């Protein structure tokens, strides 16, 4: 199978949510969509492994859910808007998720945002 190359592939540190990622991430994103309902968030909290199994996540996706590794979940086809629903269950804010993916502390991430009068590259 050959997936099309795209002119956005060169943007560093960016995983544009295209067909390839959508296909890979479908079970994961479908699970995240279920978290629109409070009872499903509670069911996930009760037994994460069973819940991930029910939605057919791949072993790598299940492992990344288990370790709260949002960057890995993005790389495995998670869409960030859907992952936000999962991150909320983990008590992670948008800034927490940003800092974690960038590999810096939340305070460093906030300071970076405050100072972003100029573009941050990379």
């Amino acid at each position: 199978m050959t997936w099309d190359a795209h002119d956005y592939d060169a943007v560093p540190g960016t995983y544009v949510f295209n067909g390839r990622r959508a296909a890979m991430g479908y079970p994961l994103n479908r699970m995240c969509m279920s978290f629109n309902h409070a009872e499903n968030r509670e069911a996930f909290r009760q037994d994460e492994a069973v819940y991930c199994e029910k939605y057919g996540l791949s072993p790598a996706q299940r492992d990344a859910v288990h370790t709260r590794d949002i960057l890995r979940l993005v790389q495995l086809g998670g869409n960030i808007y859907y992952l936000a629903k999962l991150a909320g269950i983990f008590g992670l804010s948008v800034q927490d998720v940003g800092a974690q993916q960038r590999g810096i502390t939340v305070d460093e991430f906030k300071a970076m945002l405050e100072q972003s009068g100029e573009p941050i590259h990379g």
Partner: protein
Amino acid sequence: MARIVGGITTSHIPAIGAAISKGLQNTAYWKPFFDGYAPVRRWLDAVEPDVAVVIYNDHGLSFFLDQIPTFAVGAATQYPNEDSGWGLETLPPVRGDLELSWHIIESLVADEFDITICQEMKVDHGFIVPMMTMWPDAKEWPITAVPVAVNTVQHPLPSAARCYKLGKAIGRAIESYPDDLSVVVFGTGGMSHQLQGERAGFINKPFDTMFMETLVENPEALTRLSNAELIREVGSEGIELIMWLAMRGAMTRGATLVHSHYHIPVSSTAAGVLVLENSAPALAGV
């Protein structure tokens, strides 16, 4: 005849909605942001629009990735807001305007925009946060609405040029509606931000500033930007700015700037708001 009195582009960051729900507008963190909306509210109070045509994107409430319309138009008597797992307060539904919806739908399809028609449509923060920001104290929303959802989630996305043309077609649709209605067109989302990948937290103030100025004076120049260029300049989620071009397309060429405000950061995002009016400003000094 219906008339587009003006257009508003505004960020729709969920944290804004949470701040309004918690009454934090006057705190040190939030005041510089919310101060930028006082002139917008004064302008709305002066023009008293009947209808808001809201061009926004859904983030996984009304649509899932199983079926993603590139452009979708609501045709419902009301648009409920529901829990989308983002921890936001659920707000009252927004009333629809069925006849205007179907007029816009017929006009768009005749104009070769093959939109998806939605007799049921839920509206998430992409739609409701701008409504909260405009009318934070309203017990019920003072306008009816026609939601227009643009796919900014599942690539390939429509281009900036395509969204600008959609806006022009929406403008023609509204201006050909026989009833006397005063309409405001919203374009929501942006400005620069990236929520995913090692580049999360990317903000580009020089580009945002240029974008706001150029959108008013020379929007066609912005329609030459490819989506790859936009992702590079405003981040993978900042691409929502294509919906600002849709709003601009619905305005007249000579629409005038009433108000502009830019603030960094709100959550992880650069927040911007613009008010354009189709004729000379109704209010001096807004």
